[in-house]
């Protein structure tokens, strides 16, 4: 037999299920200095087990089937005592609630559909190599799909969208992060009132900015349908843009339709134009960086997201108020300095590029719009949400801290005169992106460039737009009414 002290205690007439006793035994046996612990009802067979293990002593030999024996062997008296205490405590503490735990989640689409038979939309955000498979399974089961994943092969996208058209389903994405369906913000989307303007967008922040500008001007959104950044390219040929157009065209709640995208493939552009000509509704096309398009009479072209929102509100235009520029000009700023744009939204970065290009200002960018780009200018506009920045890191809309380092560098750079930034609110976004921006500014010492920002959001968003604007102003940041307005103000500063 092993060395050390062994002893037993008997609890007469105390019954506990053997599984419970085995669990307590294991707990006690895990204590320091305890080499063996066994709690058992003293049935003849159990006593034999205890005897074979060298744990049954004279004191417990007389115990019967209705008695509980606690048998322990430990290094010394202290460890033995502690083990008995622990065993008694465990026996005393067996009663009580099992504790709350997280609910069960199904592992497969099939089981999920059993739990929610009324499901009509699947959001798929699994790693890219499996994303097409899951999206296809959802389409095959009659679900519309919002495919958030990126890195989906173009061939898979074409096949998925063909399947969706065949089944009469929407296949939003891949790389679609934003949609507003029947008043429900899906993914990264803002709380906007329902209204008569339908949106179709290749990109998330483009949809968000237009929806928010319309909402803040008193309008509302019927639906916002995302289609993915490649939908209007030659390979996909606008498959989902056309499906979304069909859907909104016969949607009685939609009176005007805004289409937001990068410049389309020419053949696809013609198909879209022809489809628009077929409709009785009024269309606005905003393809940032696109030269003049050939459009039917019921469609107008907008060069910025703001212009698109204005056109959709029947031309109720609202240019950037003059006080924004006055405020910016009132700040001490360096003449002839450079511009740094640090964006979390890709479309917001593109819109800023369009505004600056229009103002005759060149710049470098990691995501240049067609016809833009001038590396020698010293100005730069960076999309921090682009792939090269988000690999292995969260998107800046989820974690605005990824902007901290480039922002601090820009503030400290004596060659920089103006910093442009966006703050994107809504469901799914960070709870306080403005606070983060303000904190970096507060940490900066000495002279700083003029920082101009805009806040894409609404009062109904979880972050509350007015609170975010106030936090930015408090930090000394010039806040424009729109992203385009912020870029215009920056352009005016650079020119002035």
């Amino acid at each position, binding site marked *: 037999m092993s060395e050390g002290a062994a002893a037993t205690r008997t609890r007469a007439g105390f019954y506990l*299920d053997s*599984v*419970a006793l*085995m*669990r307590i*035994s*294991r707990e006690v046996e895990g204590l320091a200095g305890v080499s*063996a*612990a*066994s709690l*058992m009802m003293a049935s003849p*067979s159990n006593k*034999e*087990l*205890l005897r*074979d*293990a*060298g*744990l049954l002593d004279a004191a417990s030999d007389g115990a019967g089937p209705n008695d509980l024996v606690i*048998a322990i062997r430990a290094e010394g008296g202290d460890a033995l005592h502690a083990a008995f205490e622990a065993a008694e405590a465990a026996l005393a503490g067996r009663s009580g609630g*099992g*504790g709350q*735990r997280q609910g*069960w989640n*199904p*592992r*497969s689409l099939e*089981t999920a559909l059993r739990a929610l038979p009324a499901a009509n939309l699947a959001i798929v955000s699994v790693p890219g190599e499996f994303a097409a498979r899951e999206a296809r399974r959802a389409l095959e089961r009659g679900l519309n799909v919002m495919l958030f994943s990126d890195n989906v092969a173009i061939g898979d996208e074409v096949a998925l969208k063909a399947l969706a058209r065949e089944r009469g389903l929407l296949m939003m994405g891949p790389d679609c992060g934003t949609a507003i369906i029947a008043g429900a913000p899906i993914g990264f989307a803002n709380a906007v009132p329902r209204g008569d303007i339908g949106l179709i967008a290749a990109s998330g922040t483009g949809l968000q900015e237009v929806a928010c500008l319309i909402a803040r001007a008193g309008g509302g959104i019927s639906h916002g349908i995302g289609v993915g950044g490649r939908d209007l390219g030659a390979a996909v040929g606008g498959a989902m843009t056309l499906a979304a157009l069909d859907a909104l065209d016969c949607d009685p709640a939609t009176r005007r339709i805004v289409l937001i995208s990068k410049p389309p493939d020419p053949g696809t552009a013609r198909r879209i134009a022809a489809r628009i000509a077929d409709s009785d509704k009024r269309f606005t096309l905003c393809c940032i960086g696109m030269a003049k398009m050939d459009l039917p009479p019921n469609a107008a072209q907008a060069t910025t997201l703001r212009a698109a929102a204005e056109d959709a509100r029947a031309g109720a235009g609202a240019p950037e108020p003059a006080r924004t520029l006055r405020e910016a000009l009132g700040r001490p700023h360096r003449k002839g300095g450079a511009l740094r744009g640090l964006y979390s939204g890709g479309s917001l970065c593109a819109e800023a590029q369009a505004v600056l290009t229009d103002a005759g200002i060149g710049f470098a960018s990691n995501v240049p719009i067609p016809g833009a780009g001038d590396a020698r200018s010293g100005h730069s506009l960076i999309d921090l949400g682009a792939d090269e920045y988000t690999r292995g890191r969260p998107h800046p809309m989820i974690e605005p801290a990824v902007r901290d380092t480039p922002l601090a560098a820009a503030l400290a750079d004596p060659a920089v005169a103006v910093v442009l930034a966006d703050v994107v609110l809504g469901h799914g976004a960070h709870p306080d992106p403005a606070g983060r921006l303000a904190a970096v500014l507060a940490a900066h010492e000495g002279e700083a460039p003029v920082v101009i920002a805009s806040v894409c959001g609404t009062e109904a968003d979880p972050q509350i737009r007015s609170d975010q604007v106030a936090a930015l102003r408090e930090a000394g940041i010039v806040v424009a009414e729109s992203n385009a307005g912020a870029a215009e103000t920056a352009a005016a500063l650079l020119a002035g």
Partner: protein
Amino acid sequence: MTAGDAAAAVEAANARAVERMLAADPVLADVAVAGEAIAGLEGRTVLHAGPPIGWPDMCGPMRGAVAGAIVLEGWADDLESAGALAAAGGVAFHPNHRFDAVGPMTGLTTPSMPVMVVENRAFGNRAFCTLNEGLGKVMRFGGNDAEVLARLRWLADGFGPAFGAALREAGGIALKPLIARGLSMGDEMHQRNVACTSLLLRAIAPALARVVDDRAALARLFEFIGGNDQFFLNVAMAMGKAIMDPVRGIAGSSVVTAMSRNGTMFGIRVSGLGDRWFTAPVEMPRGLYFPGFSEADANPDMGDSTIVETVGLGGFAMAAAPAVAGFVGAGTAADALDYTRAMEEIAVARNPEWTIPALDFAGVPTGIDIRKVVASGQAPTINTGIAHREAGIGQVGAGVVRAPMACFEQALQAFAAEMGVA
């Protein structure tokens, strides 16, 4: 066959497979002598648990049980010469499953042993399982000493004939309703059979009293059944086999018809693939151990008892038996529910008659689909006893183990070939 056609054919075949499972009418009908009841079990033949295995590959407990069975049959005088006889090829080894039979742990069935007979009266087939010997040192855990053999002789000469006579007198005991009640009383029919054992004893007691004249003998029978919470396990196993055998050989069905292990290899059979075994090395159970024992003493997973999981009980019905969930993990009642929900992911249907109160009377997951197992990465969860890795020591614990995924992956490849889509 196109992929779409294949998928539709599999769905239809699996629906038929589950229909047959649910239509089964298993009745515990009799106790008979194995060599008389089981066609082809003759001469020096030893049936064992799991897929086919020869003496050289057998684990310790299996060898110990084989030696004991040889002595029991009188083919050798002592354990040593019995081992020598087996090693020299003096007995023929076959899986129980080849002879409509199943056995727990080592699962040994030899001609003179009494076997319980379960008739599937909806399909006319019969299945067999030896009698449960009780806890402690028993042959199913490799025990083979004089006490073990003496108990086996009493089962053959005393208990078996009386229990069989009582069953015949009672016209058999329908098992489906008994299982349904057991589920609502906290049994899952693999690690926990206390309710079903009690229900069975209650049902058979009058008939036993009628057929056994000697009061002391009768008392001993009651004592034996009442003193062994796991008595019903062997009944549940024969029932499982009787339910699954008519599901074999449905072309295009990816439903598992048997899961079984011989202590060395785990094997499965699939309806649409006939009687082929798909095997992989068995895994080690995780669980709780009796005093003086630890995982170092444990034999890898063993026995035909996984037939119980194959019909949707055992690990699949864990939600009915929160007490059993204590063997693994945090051991909360909520854990028990999750075990059953996880198994629903790999099942074709739910059994409308075998329901679980704690899951709002949802039925146990029924019909394991190899496609779903591979797709979900979720292997069947099995509740099991744990044998000592040396022969003759017996049960050292109980726990949970998973079927090896490799069995299902191999079967899926063969199934795809069978369906012409590989």
